[in-house]
């Protein structure tokens, strides 16, 4: 009797769960549609709250999946739910009969060009958090040339009914503060503004990060959502917002504007969800079996979730979620297939 488990998505959640399940003795297979493992983590430079190298975490995850069979550049062509297993056909022609399937399809960053008033894709010096992270990672950028003033715009594509996302993306506040400190490390003379609605520094060490940003780096936090951005002749940008703490509109010129694009459910994950007729909540992320205890379970027996496909999560939260999912799968197999070995 086979003890195959299929994991859809090779980001941090999929990798962490894959490693654990492999160590628990299952024949674990991982399917990743892009050409490398690691998801968004692989594109990131350093991680909040303590500035750990993303690569360090990725290297540990990679070491952890030793023995796991994984397929890169591979999509799911179809999934059929059988009596007590799943028949999955991959785009590379391989068919897998799996006892359990773990959905770890993650997220897409909100497409910042949808907020046209911020000018991403229109003005040269408007970039996103991902663009800035790529600059930190490579040290190369055509747009970042010794900026004298820099603005960070929180909640781009989050808490915004007009773009179809009412919810908070959870990780952008801490990311913005981290990135603001990092830009000050590179350009100590620059004036840095952070436009926020609420600063949601909920996690351990986050408040310290905020305090450090204020005290050590002198980041100016402005409570107000940026309403519009325009480009001047010299390519610098004029940013308009309200300073809601003094109830006055403000304007400020910046040489670089960083948009904190939020977390949206991955399109590729939605496609897999449709194959399985999975339901999702109003926020677009998959519905879990309940909202308190069974966060890694779907309503389909044998089908599980891990990571941000069920809503925004930090990296540590994602890894914990993946570990929980692995334990849930182990329990499910033991209960339903007692003679599996």
């Amino acid at each position: 009797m086979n003890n195959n488990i299929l994991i859809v998505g090779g980001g941090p959640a999929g990798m962490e769960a894959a490693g654990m399940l492999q160590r628990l003795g299952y024949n674990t297979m991982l399917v990743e549609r892009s050409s490398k493992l690691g998801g968004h983590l692989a594109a990131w430079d350093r991680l909040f709250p303590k500035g750990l190298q993303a690569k360090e975490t990725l290297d540990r995850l990679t070491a952890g999946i030793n023995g796991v069979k994984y397929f890169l550049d591979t999509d799911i062509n179809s999934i059929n739910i059988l009596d007590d297993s799943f028949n999955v056909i991959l785009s590379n022609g391989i068919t897998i009969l799996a006892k359990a399937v773990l959905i770890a399809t993650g997220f897409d960053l909100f497409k910042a060009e949808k907020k046209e008033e911020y000018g991403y894709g229109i003005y040269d010096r408007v970039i996103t958090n991902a663009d800035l992270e790529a600059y930190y990672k490579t040290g190369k950028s055509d747009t970042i040339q010794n900026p004298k003033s820099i603005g960070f715009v929180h909640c781009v594509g989050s808490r915004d009914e007009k773009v179809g996302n009412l919810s908070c993306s959870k990780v952008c506040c801490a990311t913005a503060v981290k990135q603001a400190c990092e830009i000050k490390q590179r350009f100590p003379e620059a004036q840095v503004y952070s436009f926020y609605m609420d600063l949601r520094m909920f996690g351990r060490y986050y408040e310290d990060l905020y305090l450090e940003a204020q005290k050590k780096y002198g980041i100016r936090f402005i409570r107000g959502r940026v309403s519009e951005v325009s480009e001047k002749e010299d390519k610098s940008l004029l940013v308009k917002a309200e300073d809601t703490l003094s109830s006055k509109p403000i304007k400020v010129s910046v040489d670089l504007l960083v948009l904190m694009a939020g977390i949206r459910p991955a399109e590729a994950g939605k496609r897999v969800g449709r194959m399985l007729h999975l339901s999702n909540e109003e926020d677009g992320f998959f519905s879990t079996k309940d909202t308190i205890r069974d966060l890694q379970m779907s309503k389909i027996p044998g089908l599980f979730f891990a990571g941000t496909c069920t809503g925004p999560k930090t990296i540590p939260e994602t890894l914990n979620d993946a570990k929980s999912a692995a334990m849930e799968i182990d329990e499910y197999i033991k209960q339903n297939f007692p003679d599996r070995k």
Partner: protein
Amino acid sequence: MTDFGYSINTSSRMNLDDFDKESFDKLAEMEPDVRKCMACGSCTASCTAGKFHETSLRSAILALQNGQEGKAIDFLKGCMLCGKCTMVCPRGINTRHLILSILKVYGTK
């Protein structure tokens, strides 16, 4: 000028490009904790002078950051240096020293 029967108000929009960085850095050198304010409003809420005259350290700090130095001084005019705000500040700012430092850097007397 011809009286058209109406006038144009100047814009109330504040321009952060007018922010006096040099003076603020000087202030931050005297009292680094000025950067620690998170605008909670505890100081304003506990202010004994605030009952009679608009007094608010939070607003004063904000006004300085917005390049409105005159306004900042106005927000501190009623202060009697009683020190109640020091007791309530969650970030542990020495508010009395901060107020005195603001007056030293930005005050005219």
